[in-house]
């Protein structure tokens, strides 16, 4: 039996800072996906919501919230929380339901309204909470991104100019994307002129936080054939593995890695796509296009290596050669990535799947990757959450 499911429809609400309730964005994206699938809302048997948790923010009731907003029609609901991988976990829940024969067609949906300014912990004196402790010591999210970036400079000889090339590339990619928040062709000079935030990373090396929503209609292959969509793009693999002890790099919000005294240290990021490749029976050489979590410009190059698109330490070479630009050997973030979107946590992993679906259908317009057949996503978030999804034609 095939473990694949079909993606019948995709939809998004444009990323930005719109100042509205997250439910509005979600309904917009959900309706767009339903229209794109050519089905009716009443055909949806399962609503799988991706949630976020932020100091009592009501996003954690995602599945039911969207089902009610679209109009209760008796579908079953589920809500998944997995930080930045929430969308992939919601997709995995829908896939399980479909492959076990419990439903034919499901809506997978994630939406976010982000607070203004720095993401910060809940107030009060809470020294037992590692997230509180690291902020007390002055270690913010960009601190971690900058430590990884500096490590690349120290070990591989990457430069700040290399990091800027990633921003320039992604800005070019996202320039014509109607769902992107930042649509400006930034130059290396623009990046160099932006304020230093956490050396070596400048403001334009680091992604913002945004409002946005993304949704998918997924179904069994039989259902897809029945409605004349047997050629729909398929989900060939979903990896949502946890890290394996002991951690080799300091993960947010920790103040230390695990001790590798008893067992060898391992990279979490590198382990995420391994299961996806195995499950899909696809090798890194087969990948036509990738959407990766560029929380910083330098981190995008870590992902090239973690996805095995190039040997360890050669990420910057790939960028310098233009291999990851549209038209290059292996285009990465044709959507413009987080550089052009900003992060909308529970929607972002689904937005990656939306982009790859458009790419594999040949519907990506001016940012189309020629002859795209296999796409892979990758992201990583807090608390040992991460995911990698493979789509194929």
């Amino acid at each position, binding site marked *: 039996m095939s473990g694949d499911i079909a993606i019948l429809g995709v939809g998004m609400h444009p990323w930005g800072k719109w100042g509205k309730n997250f439910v509005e964005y979600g309904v917009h994206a959900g309706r767009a996906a339903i229209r794109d699938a050519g089905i009716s809302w009443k055909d949806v048997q399962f609503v799988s919501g991706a949630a976020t948790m932020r100091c009592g923010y009501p996003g954690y009731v995602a599945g039911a919230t969207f089902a009610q907003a679209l109009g209760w029609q008796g579908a079953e609901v589920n809500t998944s929380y997995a930080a930045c991988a929430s969308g992939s976990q919601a997709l995995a829940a829908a896939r399980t339901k479909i492959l076990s024969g419990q439903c034919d067609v499901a809506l997978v949906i994630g939406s976010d309204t982000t607070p203004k*300014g*720095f993401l*910060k*912990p809940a*107030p009060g*004196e809470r*020294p037992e909470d*590692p997230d*509180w*402790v*690291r*902020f*007390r*010591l*002055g*270690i*913010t999210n960009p*601190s971690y991104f*900058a*430590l*990884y*970036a*500096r*490590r690349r400079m*120290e*070990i591989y000889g990457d430069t700040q100019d290399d990091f800027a090339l990633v921003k320039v590339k992604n800005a070019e990619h996202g320039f014509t994307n109607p769902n992107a928040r930042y649509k400006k062709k930034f130059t290396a000079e623009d990046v160099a002129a932006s*304020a*230093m*935030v*956490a*050396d*070596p*990373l400048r403001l334009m090396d680091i992604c913002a936080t945004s409002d946005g929503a993304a949704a998918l209609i997924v179904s069994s292959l039989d259902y897809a054939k029945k409605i004349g969509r047997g050629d729909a793009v398929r989900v060939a693999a979903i990896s949502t593995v946890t890290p*394996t*002890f*002991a951690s080799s*790099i*300091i993960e947010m919000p920790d*103040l*230390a*890695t*695990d*001790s*590798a*005294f*008893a*067992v060898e*240290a391992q990279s979490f990021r590198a382990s995420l796509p391994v299961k996806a490749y195995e499950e899909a029976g696809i090798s890194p050489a087969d990948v036509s296009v990738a959407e990766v979590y560029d929380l910083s410009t330098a981190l995008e190059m870590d992902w090239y290596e973690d996805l095995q698109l190039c040997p360890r330490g050669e990420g910057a070479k790939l960028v310098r050669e233009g291999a990851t630009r549209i038209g290059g050997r292996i285009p990465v973030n044709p959507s413009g990535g987080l550089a052009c979107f900003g992060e909308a946590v529970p929607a972002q992993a689904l937005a990656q799947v939306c982009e790859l679906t458009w790419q594999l259908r040949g519907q990506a317009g001016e940012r189309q990757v020629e002859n795209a057949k296999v796409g892979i996503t990758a992201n990583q978030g807090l608390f040992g959450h991460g995911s990698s999804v493979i789509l194929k034609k």
Partner: protein
Amino acid sequence: MNKTQVPALEGWFTMDAEKPHLLGTQCKGCGTYYFPRQTVFCKNPACESEAFDEVQLSRTGKVWSFTNACYQPPEPFVAPDPFVPYTIVAVELEKEKMIVLGQAVEGVEVSDLKAGMDMELVLETLFEDDENEKLTWKWKPLPTDGGAA
């Protein structure tokens, strides 16, 4: 006039002015070190031990990576007015095989650091309130002539 020096985090390090140590634990079963202290269960999937020794971690190590904070972090960070940027260092402890974050001592800039440099743990003020100086651990470059304490 002098304010009392107290730890910014109770029980995370010794208040030894000369040679402070971070306070951790070590699993009695597999030897894995923990910082911050872990006393309930070992996180090694091959180890079911629930017994730990209290240990002082090595107070020297090598730079893994480093950065700085050019903008004032949000609360609970307590910032001086005006805000003064500071450097952050990740230091690899050889015996414990772990990397520990911390601020660098005042005056150390990003341009002073390189991966692999020897660092030592010291105590310095994190912030002050009306009565107390709140101390924390910070990393300080060791003199290259090997004349370290």
